[in-house]
């Protein structure tokens, strides 16, 4: 049987298994073992256990539970409320200040926690009622929070980038830096659109009937500043070459837990357990997918399927931008159904040889892929953010929330187009701070 036919069979079976509702981790593992036995016989099983174990024996992977714990500690504390209050109290008299404080709080909190649902919940609980109280349209109030929550996977530290870095052997530090400018630009685009639409609809975008005192303005800052300082410290240590990502994340996680406990008096063992439980659930889920994705990747490589696909696409001599469009459409549709972590671990090792052969920079592609994954977070049927926001504002029909997110989806698509037109948006900062590398060098 030719590798092309084998590839087609593997693709169809993978889709069927994933759609069957089985956990992605076990589904991938089952497919890998089955095809190894079918095409190579039982001898192929000798290396399976070792490959499975080797997939996890990497010190870089230690950074995943550490960053997850950092996010869980901040997410389970009322830090989101304080962050929102701090920004609102400083910006409430600026035209569009409420939008800026909401989306700004989303961007900062998303970066701190790395969790899209946690961000939507924390900022949305404060921001949505306040926006509605001040006369903002329901679709703008809910849609902006849905979109703001997605920024967490783009603005560093981001677990999505760690997974992409591991799956494609691309520098995680470089990916983190590459996410900064597009992340800020996207936040800016969200803000611009929101200010524009509320201005166009004739709503007051700033509060004119009350003032916060200086005491009130400074009240929330001491609570939130330590968390921002820790994350800034982690990033500095990472880029200063002082420590590895895992070391920086480990110390950051411990400090975030201590700060959450001290500042918010989270002494009860229940709260400690909640942080540890959430960290364990999320980390184990991701690490198990990594282990089986390595097995899946091993099966694809040992059957020469990855190489055959890359050659077949290269032989088609498709225009590289048409190819990029097709890849993005494929990722977009996948993102409607499958969570970002699973998509990245499954597809990026297959896509990497294709995109490097077409002359794209893997770091740049990591950013494009991540923005693409953000769309899936606010798009039905999975679109978890939509339903979180809908739970916060139950009287707003879910269809209105969905329509409210559409302009932000278009902002994300525009950001991808901008990245295609000007790849330096992503590559300038890492090249400037870490030195330029040639495409394909990772």
């Amino acid at each position, binding site marked *: 049987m030719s590798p092309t036919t084998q590839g087609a069979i593997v693709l169809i079976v993978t889709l069927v298994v*994933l*759609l*069957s*509702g*089985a*956990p*992605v981790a*076990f*589904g991938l593992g*089952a497919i890998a*073992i089955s095809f190894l036995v079918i095409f190579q016989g039982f001898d192929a*099983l000798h290396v*399976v*256990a070792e490959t499975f*174990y080797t997939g*996890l*024996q*990497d010190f870089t*992977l*230690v950074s995943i*539970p*550490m960053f997850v714990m950092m996010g869980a500690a901040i997410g389970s504390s009322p830090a989101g409320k304080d962050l929102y209050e701090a920004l609102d109290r400083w910006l409430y008299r600026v035209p569009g200040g409420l939008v800026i404080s909401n989306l700004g709080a989303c961007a900062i909190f998303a970066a701190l926690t790395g*969790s899209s*649902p*946690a961000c939507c*919940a924390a900022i949305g609980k404060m921001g949505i009622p306040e926006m509605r109280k001040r006369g903002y349209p329901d679709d703008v109030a809910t849609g902006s929070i849905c979109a703001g929550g997605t920024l967490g996977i783009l603005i560093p530290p981001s677990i999505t980038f760690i997974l992409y870095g591991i799956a494609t052997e691309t520098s995680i530090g470089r990916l983190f830096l590459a996410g900064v400018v597009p992340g800020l630009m996207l936040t800016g685009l969200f803000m611009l659109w929101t200010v524009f639409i509320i201005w166009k609809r004739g709503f007051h975008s700033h509060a004119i009937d009350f003032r916060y005192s200086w005491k009130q303005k400074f009240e929330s800052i001491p609570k939130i500043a330590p968390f921002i300082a820790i994350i800034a410290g982690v990033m500095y240590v990472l880029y200063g070459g002082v*420590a590895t990502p*895992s*070391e920086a*994340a*480990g*110390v950051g996680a*411990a400090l975030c837990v201590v700060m959450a406990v001290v500042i918010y008096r989270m002494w009860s063992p229940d709260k400690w*357990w*909640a942080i*540890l439980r*959430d*960290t*364990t*659930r*999320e*980390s*184990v*889920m991701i*690490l*198990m*997918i990594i282990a089986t994705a390595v097995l899946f990747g091993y099966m694809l490589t040992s059957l020469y399927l990855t190489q055959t696909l890359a050659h077949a696409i290269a032989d088609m001599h498709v225009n590289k931008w048409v190819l990029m469009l097709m890849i993005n459409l494929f990722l977009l549709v996948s993102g409607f*159904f*499958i*969570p970002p*972590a*699973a998509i990245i671990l499954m597809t990026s090792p297959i896509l990497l040889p294709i995109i490097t052969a077409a002359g794209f920079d893997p770091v740049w592609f990591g950013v494009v892929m991540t923005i693409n994954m953000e769309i899936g977070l606010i798009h039905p*049927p*999975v679109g*978890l953010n*939509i*339903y*979180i926001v809908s*739970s*916060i504002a139950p009287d707003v029909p879910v269809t209105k929330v969905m329509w409210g997110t559409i302009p932000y989806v278009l902002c994300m698509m525009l950001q991808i187009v901008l990245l295609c037109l000007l790849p330096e948006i992503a590559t300038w900062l890492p090249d400037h701070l870490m030195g330029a590398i040639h495409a394909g060098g990772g």
Partner: protein
Amino acid sequence: MDLFIRAVTRISQLCGIIAAGLIAGGVLIVCQMVFVRYVLNQNTIWQTDFTTYCLVGATFIGSPFVLLTRGHVNVDVLPLYLGQTARYWLALASILMSLSFCLVMTVLTFNFWHEAWEQNWVSDSMWRARLWIPYATMPIGLGLIMLQYVVDLLSLLTGRQPPFGLKPRETAEEAAREQARQALGETQ
């Protein structure tokens, strides 16, 4: 049967506590390593390996707990749009497939562990750690996932649990709302 289900549930919960302990231990060891390396300016020998082994252990030992709490991500689009009967058969097929995978992997990882034990394999690092210890977490964890899957299978066959944990006639929107409620609960 209820006793068996309760016992396995307890074991899976205990696995969650052990995995959480291993992750917390990993964080503390990384902090100790940073202190020794950057503050005391001394070499570290065992910490990198130890933390990696903690994480490998947490992944396998914690997996039954994650399965119990439905934390392993899946794509539930098809189950949500199917009728009750088709949903039941699909759940049965998906459980049997995952169970078979865990069974095969338990056997393969047990053999791998056994080889490491018999031949006294040690790590390449300066620490020369005995590899059968981290390797043991694989067959133990996978065996316990298998046990949790047997419980899931029994619960499905006897009607104790609906297929995929979805209520009869639960729509995609209701399921998404339920997921959102859970996520909101976790971030309180």
